[in-house]
């Protein structure tokens, strides 16, 4: 059979079959835009499948209810007050009842996300300062649209953990919801009994803890330490596995893992440990996303192409097959875990521009929330369609 005849056969027989198997997430699209326009949105988290929380650099946290269908103008319904510094991380307990926040104000706070009780209040959207005073290198950006006021329910924290004395950049929980681990810029790591909010263990690292994760069995804490510098890291970054029960170092991966990691995460099934390089902007394709063996720390593969100028966040999809990463190139990238194949980008690449600072995937895997610095808003993607199971 000639090559030409073979091609005809493939087109005749295989073509329709291939057309029925589009790439996963091929139909992903934006269905909601949640405007805030106040300050940089630094953390975002799904609460169940129909609510989203976002925190900004002022220390405000807002919650939006997401309707089943897209297209409506959405305003926040709740405002969580209490933090006085940037919200660095948000997570929701596995039972969906509690939102936990870590902040530059040196506290971790718990919020009851099921209760609608609270004081009536308001929040002003689009109140961000115009970016005047920018004299070079950065294009002048239009002022935000006119401010407007939204009525919200104002809620206060139900618990506060005050064991840290520096900015808290690292926050993670075990999948069973029993342990919480936090790390700060003084190099202090604390393992907490999550429901009780009591310290179980604490230890001191040498440098700033900028990202961490706790293994699904709750026994290992993976920690990236580095001190950010402008053109070079002031001290060499390091990466370690620590014993969560004793606070002793288990594995030193500093030689194998170079660069400061902005996010570290274990897959819920414990098969993968993922991390992304960022935290300080470096020119070029520097936002590498890497998969490691979670027990040995051995590098399995680096995912390519990397984000440009750094990556900010990562999230495993609940299907156990895909990893999402967010970068300083205004992109969310989707990767296939098994072979490391790049699936697609969400968003449009722009170099030296706005960042996607944080991402979260709904527990049912049908939606992605991305904190988009362009307009200081949260963008909700639908991930479902013909292409996605």
């Amino acid at each position: 059979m000639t090559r030409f005849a073979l091609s005809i056969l493939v087109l005749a027989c295989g073509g329709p079959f291939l057309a029925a198997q589009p790439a996963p997430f091929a139909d992903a699209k934006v269905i909601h835009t949640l405007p805030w326009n106040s300050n940089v949105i630094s953390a975002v988290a799904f609460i169940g499948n129909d609510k989203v929380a976002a925190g900004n650099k002022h220390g405000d946290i807002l919650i939006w209810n997401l309707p089943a269908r897209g297209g409506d103008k959405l305003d926040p319904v709740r405002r969580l007050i209490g933090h006085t510094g940037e919200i660095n991380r948000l997570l929701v307990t596995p039972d969906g009842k509690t939102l936990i926040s870590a902040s530059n104000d040196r506290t971790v706070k718990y919020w009851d996300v099921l209760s609608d009780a609270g004081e009536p209040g308001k929040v002003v959207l689009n109140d961000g300062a115009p970016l005047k005073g920018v004299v070079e290198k950065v294009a002048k950006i239009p002022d935000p649209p006119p401010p407007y006021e939204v009525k919200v329910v104002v809620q206060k924290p139900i618990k506060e953990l005050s064991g840290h004395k520096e900015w808290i950049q690292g926050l993670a929980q075990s999948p069973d919801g029993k342990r919480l681990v936090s790390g700060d810029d003084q190099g202090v790591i604390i393992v907490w009994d999550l429901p009780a909010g009591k310290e179980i263990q604490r230890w001191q690292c040498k440098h700033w803890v900028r990202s961490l994760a706790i293994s699904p069995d709750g026994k290992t804490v993976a920690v990236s330490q580095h001190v950010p510098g402008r053109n070079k890291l002031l001290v060499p970054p390091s990466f370690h596995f620590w014993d969560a029960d004793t606070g002793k170092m288990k594995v030193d991966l500093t030689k194998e893992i170079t660069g400061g990691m902005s996010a570290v995460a274990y897959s819920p099934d414990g098969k993968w440990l993922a991390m992304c390089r960022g935290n300080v902007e470096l020119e070029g394709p520097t936002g590498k996303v890497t998969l490691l063996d979670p027990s040995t720390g051995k590098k399995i593969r680096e995912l390519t192409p990397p984000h440009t100028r750094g990556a900010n966040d990562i999230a495993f999809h609940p299907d156990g097959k895909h990893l999402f990463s967010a970068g300083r190139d205004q992109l969310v990238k989707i990767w296939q875990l098994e072979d490391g194949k790049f699936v697609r980008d969400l968003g449009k690449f722009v170099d030296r521009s706005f960042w996607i600072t944080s991402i979260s995937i709904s527990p049912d895997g049908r939606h992605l929330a991305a904190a988009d610095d362009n307009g200081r808003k949260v963008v909700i993607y639908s991930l479902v369609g013909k292409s996605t199971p």
Partner: protein
Amino acid sequence: MLSFHANNHLDRRSLMKGLLTTAGGLAVANWGALTHSQTIAQEARRSGKRCIMLYMEGGVSQIDTFDMKPGRPTAGPFLPIQTNVNGIQVCEYLPNIARHADKLAIIRSMRTQSVDHGIGGYHMHTCYPSSQRFPHPEIGAMVAKYCENPDNDLPSFVKIGSESGIYGAGYLGPQFEPFVVSDDGRLPGFANPSVSPEIQDRRGELLNFMEQRFAQQRPGDPFAAHRTSELRTIRLMRARRTFDVSEEWTRARSRYGDSNFGRACFTALKLVEAGVSFVEAAHGGYDGHNDNFPTHKANLQVLDPAWASLLQDLQERGLLRDTLVVWTSEFGRTPAINFQAGRDHFGRAWTIVLAGGGIRGGQHYGASNRDGFEVQENPVNEGDLFATIYRTMGINHRVRHYLGARPIWATPEGSRPIQQLLG
């Protein structure tokens, strides 16, 4: 329009002396002062003043250090803390400096013109814009010329690290060029001789003999300046141990911080103690177009113990009264926070801090407006700042030099020292 008074009239003799005529008949620059600068130098030397310049390379944020705007949209994540002077607050990551606020004169109304690194560095080292295409000397060279102790074996102008840029001695001549050592204050490798002191001395004598013969045949200021530089280098080799602070550093490190900048500040202390007129120590990494806040915090954690310990040690050794410490940069940073969590270059309202040397501490001078976008009172430009520094050092800020026949002043016309800061 330039005008000349009778007592400093540019007469023909001065003009001819100011011109060095080459064999080809071309007039070239004559290094050095012509008129009353020698008298000024004698006066300044008698004052025994020295200067340490701490240069924050990249442009340091005024709002995240000494001109904080708590509660305003431009504030950033840092909180102000109280200092040892009522009414003066500084960033929470300057806790050691907060204990020395009584020594600080904080100028919060700097309005400067050159807001990119190269031109800003030049302008803030010379007080003239680089666009003038004049070989203006940097401030260290000017201080070296007027305040140096000619009997001292050490160089009069030392730059620790080259991160802040090297702008040179310009029309003052090569003998006032900076002597540049490494970032942590150590001497470069070539400064360690490979021969014994006896052989060095014999070589020095031979060189001196040859130079004298050469000088007899070729009189002229450039050759004299060259010989002076060479002789000073030989003397420096004898005094090089001053740069070796290793032994004392093991004890000082915990106070200054275990960093290159900490060691640079300690070396600066030792150098002014040994009679060096001007030492510049650079601390890099303030160009926070993105990620400004964590990087700024990291920088302040290095700056704070080093700067505060320097002030403390100068005071304890009785040197602060005669040692001016200047904390400066090429410009400030925008009050607005850009979309990459950064601040950009900004010259319209920023901050410089002076301490010691007779400066009246414990005060603010000038102010920016509510959000920090404009100067609200008492604007200070580059010339005013340099006039204040020169006055403090005992140097006439309007001292005149010549490039060929063209007069050049140490500071631009209209520059005025800030009287409120002078002790």
